[in-house]
């Protein structure tokens, strides 16, 4: 046919074919560009979702997420209050009024079983291995709380034995257009007052985020009779000393006064995170379990600074960080009442004490993530940590004469080992292997060696299987170790505690499984099962004050978590947890609530007014084996809040009532100390005003 066409027609056809080819090539290139653009967006949001834990259900651990703004609407005031909503988490208190979140009933008397991170920086203090001073962090400073339960929570090369809490502040938004500048004022029961702000500053590649708060209250709560009533400092041999009549039942000073300034600076790949927290609180239930005076105090300041370099080069992600953290235990109180007797003296004007130990932690860490192999993402890293007590002094009323004036016993009879020191070397490697789009394995190990204990090898393997869009399954095995804390190793010359530098780490082998049913994009039910095989747990009692690796205990249980809505104007969150276990002496799990149920409900009356309620039930707790007291009663609390937002002037007002029905909430005391346990707040009120700019 073509051979019969004229030259002109042939030329037209050739031109048409060329144009067709050019146009179709151009169109095809455009389509490819669109596909590339879509996949880039999907990758970007995938990265964000992973970083912000929005895809929590697909992560290889058991995690619960709480958003700060939702908690504000609920009238939650502090980090501590927020953590009481976590499935399977309870709170314990000690004689210093240290508040410790307990995960799945795991050793409530131990120190350092869980870790707290503020924007990725580990802030546990060295003295207690706790973070009680951070639990009063106002909720308005917190963007999100991520709580990983179980030892699968290995984070930032730091072993978290029972769980880890990652608090994300609004510094996360500092490079976005999100406006988080605000001032906050709060007032409430116990003469509570708080003021604070958050502020972001940006110029070109430089950005700065800062938060500040000051808060105080004058809380004191009835303690019942102190430990003297239990004969803690009474002796029948070699001669009779009976201090029991000196026991008092005044209010325990639990007041709070603290302020904090946090800063995050970013310049290109470099960042600096720093915080100074000056925390002072009432002396609680006494260093020696004897009630202190109203103005006696515990200061526990905490300061940290971390410099980091983050760089992504093709398939490599590099992170290098170094930091320093200082924390102090500074206790100043009347530690025994007037006429207190010891074998050597009578303290007619009482015994006073000042205990001071300042610790420093230096660390350097680096990690490299490589995602260049098909279906594999390999991470490798190390962390070097130097922990040291850098200053210590100890003053006490004269132990020989009984004179109340303080005598310096720092050299002759110290309360703490001033040479306390530990170096820790941690190496970690992990591979995330995507067998398919629906099945991902994560496996690796932590190897840790310290200058005091043997080395630990802690493997972890997990599988996440997405059966379909609505059904997700997880299985996790992990082993982890908790190194003994400063408290357990270096306290000396103490009648109630006998420490041991040769303590070994506690071990846990954890087997966890989870099933998640997604009802919609925003509603889900999660069921977790766990079995924790704990061995060499560190334990002591007031009757047997030596810390020893004596306890093996198996803990098992389940957690159910639902989040969704009933109508289209509300939000509902519910969880229930059950835990049980037996130790090597066949003794049931003690000082842990077998049953806990928590939840909240928010109903949006209008588009700027909502009411909400929080319900918590904590079951009864069995006592320890030699504790003859009745088991600690269960309790429930109901909180209610009214939230109003003024959109024109951009401020919000929250009125909340906590523990409306004035229920008695008690945390268990150690046996032979405070017989009536540690009473917590009853009904209280709070007003919060937040003005945004």
């Amino acid at each position, binding site marked *: 046919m073509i051979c019969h066409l004229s030259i002109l027609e042939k030329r037209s056809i050739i031109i048409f074919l060329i144009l067709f080819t050019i146009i179709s090539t151009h169109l095809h290139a455009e389509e490819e560009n*669109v596909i590339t653009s*879509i996949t880039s*967006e999907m990758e970007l*949001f*995938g990265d964000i979702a992973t970083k912000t834990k929005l895809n929590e259900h697909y992560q290889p651990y058991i995690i619960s997420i709480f958003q700060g703004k939702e908690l504000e609407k609920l009238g939650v005031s502090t980090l501590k209050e927020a953590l009481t909503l976590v499935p399977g988490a309870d709170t314990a208190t000690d004689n210093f009024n240290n508040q410790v979140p307990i995960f799945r009933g795991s050793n409530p008397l131990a120190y350092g079983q869980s870790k707290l991170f503020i924007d990725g920086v580990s802030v546990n203090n060295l003295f207690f291995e706790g973070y009680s001073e951070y639990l009063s962090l106002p909720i308005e400073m917190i963007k999100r709380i991520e709580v990983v339960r179980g030892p699968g929570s290995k984070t930032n090369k730091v072993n978290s034995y029972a769980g880890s809490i990652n608090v994300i502040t609004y510094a996360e938004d500092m490079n*976005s*257009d999100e406006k988080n500048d605000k001032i906050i004022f709060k007032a409430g029961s116990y003469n509570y007052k708080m003021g604070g702000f958050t502020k972001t500053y940006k110029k070109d590649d430089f950005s700065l985020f800062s938060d500040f708060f000051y808060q105080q209250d004058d809380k004191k709560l009835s303690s019942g009779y102190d430990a003297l009533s239990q004969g803690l400092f009474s002796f029948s041999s070699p001669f009779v000393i009976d201090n029991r009549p000196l026991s008092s039942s005044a209010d325990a000073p639990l007041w709070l006064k603290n302020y904090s300034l946090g800063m995050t600076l970013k310049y290109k790949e470099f960042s600096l995170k720093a915080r100074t927290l000056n925390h002072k609180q009432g002396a609680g239930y006494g260093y020696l379990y004897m009630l202190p005076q109203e103005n006696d105090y515990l200061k526990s300041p905490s300061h940290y600074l971390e410099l980091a370099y983050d760089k992504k080069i093709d398939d490599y992600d590099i992170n290098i960080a170094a930091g320093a953290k200082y924390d102090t235990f500074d206790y100043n109180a009347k530690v025994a009442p007037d006429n207190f007797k010891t074998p050597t003296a009578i303290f007619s004007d009482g015994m006073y004490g000042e205990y001071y130990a300042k610790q420093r932690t230096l660390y350097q860490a680096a990690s490299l993530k490589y995602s260049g192999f098909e279906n594999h993402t390999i991470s490798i890293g190390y962390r070097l940590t130097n922990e040291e007590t850098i200053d210590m002094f100890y003053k006490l009323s004269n132990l020989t004469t009984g004179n109340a004036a303080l005598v310096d016993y720092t050299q002759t009879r110290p309360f703490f080992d001033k040479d306390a020191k530990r170096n820790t070397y941690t190496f970690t490697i992990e591979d995330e292997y995507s067998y398919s789009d629906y099945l991902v394995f994560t496996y690796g190990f932590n190897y840790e060696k310290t200058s005091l204990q043997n080395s630990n090898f802690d493997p972890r393997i997990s599988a996440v299987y997405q059966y379909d869009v609505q059904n997700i399954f997880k299985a996790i095995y992990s082993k982890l170790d908790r190194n003994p804390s400063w408290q357990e190793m270096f306290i000396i010359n103490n009648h109630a505690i006998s420490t041991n530098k040769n303590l070994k780490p506690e071990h846990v082998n954890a087997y966890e499984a989870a099933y998640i049913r997604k009802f919609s994009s925003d509603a889900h039910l999660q069921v977790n099962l766990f079995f924790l095989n704990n061995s060499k747990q560190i334990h002591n009692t007031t009757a047997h004050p030596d810390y020893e690796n004596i306890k093996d205990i198996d803990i098992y249980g389940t957690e159910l978590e639902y989040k969704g809505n009933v109508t289209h104007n509300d939000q509902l969150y519910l969880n229930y947890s059950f835990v049980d276990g037996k130790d090597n002496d066949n003794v049931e799990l003690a000082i842990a609530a077998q049953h806990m149920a928590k939840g909240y409900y928010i109903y949006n009356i209008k588009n700027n007014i909502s009411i909400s309620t929080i319900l918590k039930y904590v079951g009864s707790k069995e006592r320890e084996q030699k504790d003859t007291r009745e088991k600690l009663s269960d309790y429930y609390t109901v909180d209610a809040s009214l939230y109003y937002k003024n959109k024109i002037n951009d401020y919000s007002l929250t009125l909340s009532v906590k523990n409306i029905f004035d229920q008695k909430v008690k945390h268990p005391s150690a046996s032979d100390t405070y017989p009536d346990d540690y009473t917590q707040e009853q009904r209280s009120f709070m007003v919060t005003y937040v003005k945004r700019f």
Partner: protein
Amino acid sequence: MKKFILLFFTLTVTIYGYTYNEMLIKAQIAVFPKILLLDKKINNKLVDNKIVFIIAHEESDGTTAANIQNIFLQLYKNTLSNYVFETKTVEFSKISQSTEATAIYILNSQTAIKDLSNICASKGIITFSYDINNLKSGLMFSLMLEKNTALYINKKNFKNNKIDFIPSLYEIVKFINTQEDEQ
């Protein structure tokens, strides 16, 4: 890319009515309109030579819909490739056979989804759903923040011959099975 990084935090969705995941909304907004460019018959779906993208919502979600429209505006500035791109917020009750649109982004509703999907199917309007569950009711696309971000389609809902996407789209999506499919 950078503007998306900046914009993913831009909206503080003060949500009353249904509760929405802000980040999921932002991810969907960043992806959904671009899918229209892969429709071979997009030119047949223009309204007055414009891509008209409706955000369909319940009355109680009016604020959310307005906020979403604002993000669309910031992100696309009324332009999608070479097309004029216009977004509108319309309540479910006001959408009918006479509604003119290229595509509809559908927020949550307990009652309106099925009727809406029937209207869209008969008119060849491309549908995007906030909630993945609505694909079972006849909507076409949804997006989930899973281990990796996943774009889902219900292929059963593509039988309409007015909709014809280029084959490479199907290489980046996951197919959802409905109970009817399984039977």
